[in-house]
C-alpha cells in the first residue's frame, strides 16, 4: 500500500516538474499538464486519430511477435550451442548498441514505404535484447538441473517442459520486457521518418507544424501505454523470479 503511495507521490513530483518547465519555457515549447491531458482526451473523438492508433497497434503487434519469437528462438539456439553463442554474442551486442536510425534508409530501400518497413524497424530494435537474455538464461541453467532430469529418466520433451523451461523462464521474461520497450521505440521511430500514418507520424507532423500540444498529447499517451504494459510485464516477471 505504501508503495502505491510512494509511486503516486513521485508521479505528482514529475507532474510538478513538467508544470514548472511549462512556466519556464512557455506553451510554445512545452504545453502544460492540464492542457495536454484535455487535448489527449479530445483526440479520441477524432476518427483520424483512431486510424493512426490502429495503424500503430498493428505495426507494433507484428514487430513484437517477430522480436519475441525470433529473439527466443535465436537466443535459445545460441545458448545451447556454446561456441556459436561465443561467436555471435558480441555481434548481437553490437546490434543492440548500434544507433539503428542510421540504418533506416537501408530498411526503406529494402522494404519500401509502408507498414513492412515499420515492422522491420521495430523488430530489429527488439530482437537483440530478447536474444541476449534468452541466450544467458539457457547458459545459466545449473548443470545439476540437467543431471536431475537425466537421473529421473525424463524424456527430452519432459525435461524441457518440467525442468529446463521453468529454470530459464524468469530471465527470458526480463528479456521479453526489455524487448517490448525497444520494439515500441523502434516502431515509433519507423513511423516518424517515412510513413504517413501512425502515432509516430503524428508526432513528427506535429513537430513540423510546431503543434506542441499534439506532440505532447501523443507522447503522454505513449508514456501511459508503455508504463502500464511495463508494470504488468514486471509483475509477471517478479512472480516468476520469486518461484526460483
Amino acid at each position, binding site marked *: 500500500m505504501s508503495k502505491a503511495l510512494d509511486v503516486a507521490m513521485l508521479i505528482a513530483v514529475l507532474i510538478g516538474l513538467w508544470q514548472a518547465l511549462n512556466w519556464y*519555457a*512557455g506553451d510554445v515549447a512545452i504545453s502544460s499538464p492540464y492542457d495536454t491531458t484535455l487535448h489527449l482526451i479530445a483526440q479520441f473523438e477524432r476518427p483520424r486519430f483512431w486510424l493512426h492508433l490502429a495503424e500503430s497497434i498493428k505495426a507494433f503487434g507484428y514487430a513484437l511477435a517477430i522480436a519475441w519469437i525470433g529473439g527466443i528462438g535465436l537466443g535459445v539456439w545460441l545458448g545451447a550451442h556454446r561456441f556459436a553463442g*561465443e561467436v555471435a554474442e558480441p*555481434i548481437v551486442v*553490437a546490434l543492440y*548498441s548500434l544507433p539503428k536510425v542510421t540504418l533506416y534508409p537501408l530498411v526503406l530501400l529494402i522494404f519500401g514505404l509502408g507498414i513492412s518497413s515499420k515492422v522491420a524497424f521495430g523488430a530489429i530494435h527488439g530482437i537483440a535484447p530478447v536474444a541476449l537474455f534468452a541466450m544467458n538464461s539457457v547458459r545459466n541453467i545449473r548443470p545439476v538441473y540437467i543431471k536431475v532430469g537425466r537421473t529421473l529418466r525424463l524424456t527430452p520433451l519432459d525435461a524441457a517442459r518440467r525442468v529446463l523451461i521453468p529454470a530459464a523462464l524468469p530471465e527470458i521474461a526480463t528479456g521479453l520486457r526489455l524487448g517490448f520497450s525497444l520494439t515500441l*521505440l523502434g516502431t515509433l521511430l519507423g513511423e516518424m521518418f517515412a510513413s504517413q500514418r501512425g502515432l509516430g507520424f503524428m508526432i513528427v507532423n506535429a513537430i513540423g507544424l510546431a503543434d506542441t500540444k499534439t506532440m505532447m498529447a501523443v507522447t503522454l499517451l505513449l508514456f501511459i501505454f508503455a*508504463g502500464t504494459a*511495463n508494470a504488468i510485464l514486471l509483475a509477471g516477471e517478479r512472480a516468476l523470479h520469486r518461484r526460483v
Partner: protein
Amino acid sequence: MTRAGAWRLGLLAGFALALELATRTGAISHTILIPPSAMLARLAGIVAEGQLVDDIAFTLLSVLTAFALAVSTGFLAGIGIHALPRLRRALDPFFATYYAVPFFVFYPVMIAIFGLSKLPVIAIAYLFAVVAMIVNTLNGLDRIPRVLAKVARVHRLSWADAAWNVKLPAAAPNLFTGIKLAIAYAFIGTIASEFIMATSGLGYSIAYAYNNFDNRTMYALMLFVVALVGAINLGLYEWEKRLMKRRTGR
C-alpha cells in the same frame, strides 16, 4: 585472439565478401546497396578531402560529453538512491518504463530550454544514457555480498578504503555493464537526434545524403558508424571477458 574471435572475424569478412559479390554481379541492385569496397573508397575520399570531418568530430565530442556526464552523475545518483530505499521503490517502475519512450521527440523542448546549439543533442543523449548507469549502479550495490562488507569491517578499514578496495571491486561487473550501455545509449541518443532534427553532425549528414539521393556518401557514413560502434563494442567485450575470466573461472 581466441578461436571464437577468429571465427567471428571470418564470419564478418565472409559477410562483407558476399555483399561485395552480390552487388558487383547485380544480384542486389545498386539503388538498394552499393558494394562495401565502394563504401570504403567513398569514406576514404571523405576523410582525405576533409569533408564532414567537422561533423564527425562534433558528433564524437557530443557522444563523449554525454557519456562522461552520464557515467559520473549516474554513478553518484545510483549511490544516493541506493541509500534511500523508499525513493528507490517508487523509482523502480519508472526506470523499467524509461527506455520505451522516444526521447527524441523532446528535441524541440530541449531547444526551447537550451537554445539552438549543441546542447539539445547532448542533453538528449545524456538523458538516454544516464538511466542505464543508475540502474546498473543500483544492481551492483545490491549484489555486494554482505559478508564482504563484514570482512571490511573486521579489518577495520576506513570508509574510503572499504569503498575503494572492497565495495567498488565487488560491484564492478555491474558497473562495467552500466558503462557499456552508457556508451551505446550516448551514441544512439546523439546520432538519432541529429538524424531526426539537428542541422549538423554525423546523423544529420546521413539523413542529408539520403534526402539528396547521394547513396555513396550515405553508405560510407553508415559503414563508419557501424564499424566504429562495432569496434568499440568488440573491444569492450574482449576486455570484459578477460577481466571476468579470472573472477568467474570461465
